[in-house]
């Protein structure tokens, strides 16, 4: 009973984060399976976990490895799945502008490298520190900083090239 409760708690805590991470990296039909496997792996490995206060970053490390395994097993190159995302639910008045921003950002992100998108999501959106991101992506602190800097430059260049879709021109 205790194990069930622990699993529920873990699941409630990690599901949004894991699903957000997986949904834009794995083809839609496999997202649920991959996310379920990641959560099982995290829960199974909890007793051996060293840094108990770094559960989220540790879970994302497992997620990164599991996604890499997925693409290796399918013999495919990792790609980002922005086209498969559902259109955002927005108010009628904001429809035009929000929709344009969504599309242009998705298009710009799709043109960046997967590693740059990883850094943008983990560092800017999820709020992990550079050290935590380096650990999740199995790289160095300097590499994370460099990726974020290059991602900014790349994003600005691509976004400025799409003035019709909300770019600043």
């Amino acid at each position, binding site marked *: 009973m205790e194990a069930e409760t622990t699993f529920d708690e873990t699941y409630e805590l990690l599901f949004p984060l894991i699903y957000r991470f997986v949904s834009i990296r794995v083809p839609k039909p496999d997202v649920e399976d991959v996310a379920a496997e990641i959560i099982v792996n995290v829960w199974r490995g909890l007793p051996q976990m060293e840094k108990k206060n770094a559960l989220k970053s540790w879970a994302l490390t497992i997620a990164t490895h599991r996604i890499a395994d997925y693409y290796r097993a399918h013999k495919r190159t990792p790609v980002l799945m922005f086209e498969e995302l559902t259109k955002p639910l927005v108010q009628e008045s904001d429809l035009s502008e929000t929709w344009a921003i*969504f599309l242009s950002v998705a298009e710009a992100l799709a043109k960046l490298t997967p590693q740059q998108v990883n850094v943008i999501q983990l560092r800017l959106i999820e709020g992990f520190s550079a050290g935590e991101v380096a650990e999740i992506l199995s790289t160095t602190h300097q590499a994370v900083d460099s990726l*974020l800097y290059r991602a900014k430059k790349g994003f600005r260049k691509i976004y400025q090239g799409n003035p019709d879709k909300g770019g600043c021109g």
Partner: protein
Amino acid sequence: MKWFNKRMDFTSLWEEDGDLKRMKAFFSAIEADLKGREQVKHSVKQKALEIIAREEEGGIPVAGKNGLVQRMRAKLVVLSGHRRWKIGVSVIALALMVILGQGAMNSSWNILPRMGSTVKDVQMSQSLKIAPQEAGSIGVDGGSPSTKGAAVAPLPPVQAIVPPADAGIPRKITHYLTLTLEVATINDVVGKISREVQQQGGYVSESQQNGSDSHSSAQMTVKIPADKLNALRDSLATWGKVLDQHMLANDITNQYYDSQVRLQTLEAEEKRYLEILNQAKTVDDVLKVENALSNIRQQIEQLKGQLKLWNNQVDYSTVNLSLVTLQSPNVSVKNPWQPIAWSKTWQATQDAVLKTISSSWNIINYLVIGVGYTLPYLMTGALVWGGYRMWRKRNS
């Protein structure tokens, strides 16, 4: 690239041009999309629970409390399964090889006649060497019958065949013995040989030692009364291992008595010349007779010297001795196809350990010496580098 050294916050860089805001809006749209999908959350949970249930049924550990024990047990199960027979066969094969090797080394079987101790090989070569002498010999010297010690040492060679002499004429025979002896310490044995030779009434005519104590050797030439030669040879066999020996008996009876007859003839001739000299009346005659007499006396002296030498050689046999130290078993393997005896394995192991220690010590020594050799260059390099650093600091 100075921004990199200053370690600026790149998240604030993203705030420029409103990009961070756009990015957050984009991901929050995805988040909002997820919130509306409770059925997805439920479905993923169901799948996760199904995976866990499947794994529990399959016996794979779920919780990690006893993970190590269970993993070890799983490994043992795998080992005891399809690999068990492989380990068993390997152990049996190794044991067989060891038993086979030990049996062959101890010469208890004849399956590998070439393998075995070096002692046996020496015996074989010695018996081959003396075979022709035994074939034609009439009398063998009084060597003791084979004991355990005699079995290790080579059999003494038989003295040369002596033809039966006339009753009134004693045979004149010179004996030469060449012998190689392996001993533990050269100095002790050289001393023992010298004392023994003196006790027997002989003398050491030449002695030479060279090398360090562990790899030293010595050559000796001794003269021993002919009748004591066999006693000396027996003594030598007890002080070390006889590796090689060669006996040469030279019969000089004919030459000796020929020279003796010639000497008697010359002496008679000298006597007659002396008588003629007494009868000589002119100076010319005296000079002629004295000239002939001088020539005869010279020949007489030569023959006397030769006979004296032969007498000495007949009375005193010559023994040429080569002494070598006992070689370390792991370096004395001359034939790689003939391994060292099992009995020497422990000694060889001790030598190997000592060699490793001394080699390691030598490496450290060489390293220190190498540092000594390169020290001037290192110091020069350090000075140049320090100077360069100072010059660069001043310029900057």
